[in-house]
């Protein structure tokens, strides 16, 4: 009978251990959208390190930095003694992910998703992975409601502006978003159309093709606008000066992760893009 307390203690410890396995305390997060979701679930204090694409919220930036998501260093991550690596679908290289699993680290790769449903899937996935399934469900429902409202707002506009998204520039030619890109998806959700047609992915587009496409609005990430010398420089470039966008000075500059991340702020992105595209 004297042993009973010890048995209880052992059982309690085992349970604690089991609970711990479901609720990781030292999380390494790779992928801006994933990190945002973890913070939105209120588990930001359990994150010990993030990748270079995780720049929101600002507290995430001060965490330990593991570098670029497709260039993870297995041993570097292990040195942080994490109990979970949760990453976007494109984390790599595969060899590093394999090595991390071999070393006994739990690795969870989120589903790919740049649709409203994809966002919800990611939220539920992350909630489950970090032991906050109920909170994940709540957040998913909130995002779903907000998204419905945002889409309603977008549908409220009767016009369909033709938008061109410039990611950056390669060898002097603007790198423009074609079909099957996050930019194309968010433009459609905001009730606008992508002026760059006939190709998929991000491609350098010739000056004449841009003039031919006649976009009404130039959309860029605010970081890129800065880097390429400000919006005036961009709008006065010949390929944009000769388009409706350049002549009426219609442009939208938004934070890259907000615009393209398809994280929990996706409804906000849809709403602000839809409004901004109409000069709001």
């Amino acid at each position, binding site marked *: 009978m004297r042993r009973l307390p010890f048995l209880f203690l052992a059982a309690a410890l085992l349970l604690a251990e089991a609970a711990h396995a479901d609720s990781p305390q030292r999380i390494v997060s790779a992928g801006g959208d994933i990190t945002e979701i973890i913070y939105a679930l209120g588990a930001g204090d359990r994150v010990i390190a993030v990748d270079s694409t995780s720049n929101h919220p600002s507290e995430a930036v001060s965490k330990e930095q593991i570098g670029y998501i497709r260039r993870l260093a*297995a041993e570097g991550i292990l*040195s942080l003694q994490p109990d979970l690596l949760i990453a976007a679908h494109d984390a790599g290289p*595969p060899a590093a992910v394999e*090595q991390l699993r071999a*070393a006994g680290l739990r690795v969870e790769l989120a589903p790919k998703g740049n649709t409203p449903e994809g966002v919800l899937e990611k939220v539920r996935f992350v909630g489950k992975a970090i032991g906050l399934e109920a909170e994940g469900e709540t957040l998913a429902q909130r995002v779903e409601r907000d998204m419905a409202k945002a889409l309603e707002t977008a549908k409220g506009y009767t016009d369909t502006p033709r938008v061109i998204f410039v*990611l950056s520039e390669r060898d002097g030619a603007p790198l423009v978003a074609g079909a099957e890109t996050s930019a194309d998806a968010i433009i459609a959700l905001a009730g606008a159309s992508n002026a760059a047609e006939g190709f*998929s992915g991000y491609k350098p587009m010739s000056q004449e093709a841009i003039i031919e496409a006649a976009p009404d609005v130039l959309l860029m990430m605010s970081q890129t606008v800065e880097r390429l010398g400000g919006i005036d420089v961009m709008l006065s470039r010949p390929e944009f000066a000769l388009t409706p966008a350049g002549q009426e000075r219609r442009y939208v500059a938004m934070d890259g992760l907000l615009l393209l991340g398809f994280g929990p702020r996706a409804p906000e992105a849809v709403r602000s893009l839809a409004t901004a595209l109409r000069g709001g």
Partner: protein
Amino acid sequence: MSETSALPRHAAARFAGIPVFALLGAALLIVVFAELALGPVRLGPGDLLAVLLGEGEQGPSAILLQIRLPRAVLGLAVGFGLALSGCAMQGVLRNPLADPGLIGVTAGAAVGAVSVIVLGNYFVGDLPAPVRPYALPLGAFAGGLLVTAFVFSLSHLSGGTNVAMLILAGVAVNAIAGALIGAMVYISDDQQLRDLTFWSMGSIASGNWMQVSVTTMLALAAALGLLTMGRSLDLFQLGERAAFHAGIDIEREKWRIALMTAIAVGAVTAAAGPIGFIGLVAPHMARLIVGPAHRNVLPAAALIGGALILGADLAVRLAVPPTEPPIGLATSMIGGPFFLWLLMRRLKRGGF
């Protein structure tokens, strides 16, 4: 001889009596040990011993056996392969600036690898599943072999292999390869672009035992072959005519060297990406230490090459943990300045 020897004859004598190779070997062993013992994850001597005895825990065992050991083995293969290929190239072309990159072997391998990264979507899915992870190394290996065969055949058109022709054909092949890679970059999507940018900076973190052992076997077989070429390479320094009169089948020797270089460079580039400067720098360092005779330069260059690669890998692993810069940055950072210093030295001596 004067073309390839960076030091006069007395250099070798300076080390007479000192077991130079024992020192080089010891240095290499120390670097290998450091590669295994040091890293972002701190493993105590107890952990290392436990793993060696097969009693380690999962974490330390995986780190040592799945991460550090394959890196060390691959690093040695890469170092040996590149250093010996560079050494043989410099010898047979009688050109101190030659390295496998010069005649386009590396560029050919790069075209193969980049093609797989960018065009892989179209055909990799059709390959049987076990082969898929090896599509990239296979592509690189095939690219390297193809270019070597092409360049050597071209230089052979005029009868005997023409060294000037070989180098010029290499320049042309490099230009064509650059254009092909440019075309791939153009049609690549965002993610492929990043993958190929990083691939082109090299890494020995591939970490897969299957790939490491295949690469190592190919590179070591070629390396052993090249190690036996010392006498031929020495005679080549007298000029091809003299070498011929000394009883060497110069055409056969050239083809043997070309084949082994292509195998070694193709295999290591396939596994680790294009790693610059080791093929150029290691032989020069070896000559500074052991003098110009190839039977000494070859093994010394191999030992130095292995130590340089592992040293560079150790540097990138320990520099900014938990991230890891590409190893190509480190080798070029060591190799570039060394090469400049070499040029300045020759300039002062009126070597050009």
